[in-house]
C-alpha cells in the first residue's frame, strides 16, 4: 500500500543521506522525495512516498524516528490531507496540434510557461493522478521532456505540523 510521509529533520550537513541511506540500507522502497527548509531555517521538511505492508511501514516509521536528526514523522495514510505535485511538461506543438494542445491545457487548468514555434512548456499543479491524466492526453502529441516534483502534502484542518 502507498504511504505519504512527512519528516521534519534538522536542516544540517548530510541529513538527506541519512534518510536515503536508511531506505536503501534496509531495502525500503522510496517512490519520490521532496525536501526544502521550513519557516524555521534549521528545520527541513521532507515528503516521501513509499510502499509496503503494515509491518514494513511500522519499521519505516520507527527507523525514521530513531535517526537523531529526525524531529517528527507523520504518516498521512488514513488522514484527511491535501496532496499537490508540480510538473513541467515540454510537449511538441506544431501547426495543427497547437490548438488541441492548448485546449487540453485549459481543461486541466494548467499553464503554458514557455512557447516556441515547435513546443509548449506546460506547468501543472495538482494531485499526482491529475498530472498522470494530463500526461496521458499529451503523450500522443509527443512529450520531449518531463519533470515532476514528487508530491507534497499537508493535513486538512486548522492544526499545523511543526517541529
Amino acid at each position: 500500500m502507498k504511504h505519504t510521509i512527512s519528516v521534519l529533520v534538522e536542516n544540517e550537513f548530510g541529513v538527506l543521506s541519512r534518510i536515503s541511506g536508511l531506505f536503501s540500507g534496509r531495502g525500503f522502497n522510496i517512490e519520490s522525495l521532496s525536501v526544502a527548509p521550513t519557516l524555521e531555517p534549521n528545520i527541513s521538511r521532507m515528503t516521501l512516498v513509499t510502499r509496503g505492508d503494515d509491518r514494513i511501514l511500522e519499521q519505516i516509521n520507527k527507523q525514521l524516528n530513531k535517526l537523531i536528526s529526525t524531529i517528527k514523522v507523520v504518516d498521512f495514510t488514513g488522514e484527511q490531507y491535501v496532496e499537490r505535485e508540480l510538473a513541467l511538461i515540454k510537449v511538441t506543438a506544431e501547426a495543427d496540434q497547437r490548438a488541441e494542445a492548448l485546449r487540453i491545457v485549459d481543461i486541466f487548468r494548467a499553464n503554458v510557461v514557455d512557447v516556441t514555434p515547435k513546443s509548449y512548456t506546460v506547468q501543472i499543479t495538482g494531485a499526482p493522478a491529475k498530472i498522470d491524466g494530463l500526461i496521458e492526453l499529451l503523450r500522443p502529441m509527443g512529450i520531449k521532456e518531463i519533470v515532476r516534483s514528487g508530491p507534497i502534502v499537508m493535513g486538512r484542518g486548522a492544526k499545523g505540523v511543526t517541529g
Partner: protein
Amino acid sequence: MELTGSQILLESLQKEGVDTVFGYPGGAVINIYDDLFDSPIEHVLTRHEQAAVHAADGYARCTGKVGVVIATSGPGATNTVTGIATAYMDSIPMVVITGQVPTPLIGNDAFQEADMCGITRPCTKHNFLVQDIKDLARTIKEAFYIARTGRPGPVLIDLPKDIQVTKYKFKYPDKVSLRGYKPTYTGNKRQISKAAKMLLDAKRPVFYVGGGINLSAANEELVKLTEMTQTPVTTTLMAMSGFPQDHALALGMLGMHGTFYANMAVTECDLLVAIGARFDDRVTGRIDAFAKKAKVIHIDIDPTSIKKNVAVDLPIVGDLKDVLSQLGAALAEKPDELQKLVSKTTEWRETVDEWKQKHPMAYKHSESTIKPQFVIEKVRELTEDDAIITTEVGQHQMWTAQFFQFRQPRTFLTSGGLGTMGYGLPAALGAQVAYPERQVVDISGDGSFQMNSQELATLVQYKLPVKIVILNNNYLGMVRQWQQMFFDKRYSQTVMELPIDFIKLAEAYGAAGLQCDKVGDVEATIKKALEIPGPVLMEFKISREENVLPMVPAGKGIHEMVLAS
C-alpha cells in the same frame, strides 16, 4: 580562556570522565597527539586502528563506560570501520575521533582523505563532521550523550586538522538539547500491568534474555523476577554473563547452537518474554516455527527492535532496569496469584528438567586427544568468578558460550551481532586496561587469532597480563564444520596448511608461550599460565574435527537440532 581545537577536545574528554583512550597517531591528528603528550589522559597505543576500536569496545563492555578511540584520517579512519560496526551491532557505547584533512581540502581527494561520515553512517548511532570550532565542545557533549543513553552505540566525530589548531573560548556545555532524540526509559504502567497479568495467566512461561540485560545493568532485577515467578531463563550469546549460568532456572543459550532444553522450552512455551533481545536469525532459526505456541511480550529500549522480526502481543518500550523492577513490584502486589503461578507452572519446570536430563550439554571426553570443551571447562575451574573472558569468532566462541559457566555480569565479551574474527585479543587488552587486577582470558582459535595477533606487542609494552588460549585445530573450524555437514566434506580453503609456531610468535613479542598436546597437561598448563605475571599464550592442540553441537541447520526450526551423539 582560549584553547586550540585539540586542547578543547582533550579538556572535553576529561569533563566526560575519560581517563583512558585507545588510538594510533598520524598526520591528521598530530596536533591532538602533541597535546596528549602533556595530558593526564592515558593513551594506549595499539598496533592497528581496528584493534584500538576493539580495545575501547572491550573496555566499554566490561566497565559500562564509553570507550574512546583516536585515529588519523584516511586509512587510519577506514581501519576503524570493522571495530565500529562490531560495536554498533552489539550496542556498545563508544566515541571514535578521527582526524580529517583541513576543511578547505575536503572533497578534493586530498592525501589520506576518506569521507568518514559517509562511510560510517550505516554503522554508527550518529556521526558528526565538525566544520566550525564553535561547534566542537557541544559536538563532543552530544556525542557522549548519544553514545551512552537509550540503546547505546558508537558515535564518530570527524575532526578536520584546521579545526584542531583554531583557537576558541572553551566552555563545556552543561546539558544537551537534541529535539530529535529523547529515549524512553520509563515503561508504560498500563503495559506493565498487562504484562504482569499475562505472566500470571501463563502455564509455560520462558524468559528470553539478550545483551540489553548487561547494558541496562538490570541483572539483579532479572534474578529477582526469575526467582519470584520461577520462570526458566534462556540467554542469547550476548547475555551469557547476564544471568548466572549455574542458576537452577538457567537454560543456557538458545538458537543455532543453543541447548536442547532451551530450544525445546522456547518451542513449547505459551508465553515468551523477550527481555532486551532482538530476535536475531541465529536465535530464531526458521522464523515461522519460532515460539509458535507462545504469546510474546517484548521489552526493549529501542522501538525498532519490537515487531521487526516477529509479531508481538505486548510491546513495552523502556529501560530494562525500570521495566523489570516495575514488573516485579506489580507482581509482588498479588502474592496469592503469584503463589498460584508458581504451583501451576511446576509441571512445566519438571518438563524442562526432563529435557535437561535427556540431552544435557555434554561432549565425549577423550584421554588421547584434547577436547576443546575440556580446556574451556578447566579454564572456568581455574579462574576466579570475576575473570573476564573474551573470544574471537567461530567454534571456540560457541564452545565457550556453551561450556563456560558465566556467573557475573559483564564477564563475557564477544562479538555477537557482527561476528568479528580478531575481536577477542584487542578486547581482552581493553578489559585488562580497565581492570589491571582481574584475570582476563582470550579464548581463541588459530584462525581468528591471526587476525589481530600483532596486539601481542601492545600487551607486552603495557605489561597487560592477558592469558590467551588458542584452541588449535589447524582449521577454520566453523566453516569446516559446515563444509563437513552440508558440502560433502569439501574443505575448500579451510585447512590452515602452514602450521604456525605460536610459541615462537609469542616469544618474538616478548610474551611467554606454552604448548600443550596432552590431555593430562591441560590443567598444569593453565595453572602455570595464570601464575606467570605477564601475558601468556597457551596453545592447545585439540582434536581437529570436533564439531559444535547441538546445531540447527540453516532454514530449520530451532527444535530441529542435530544433537551430539
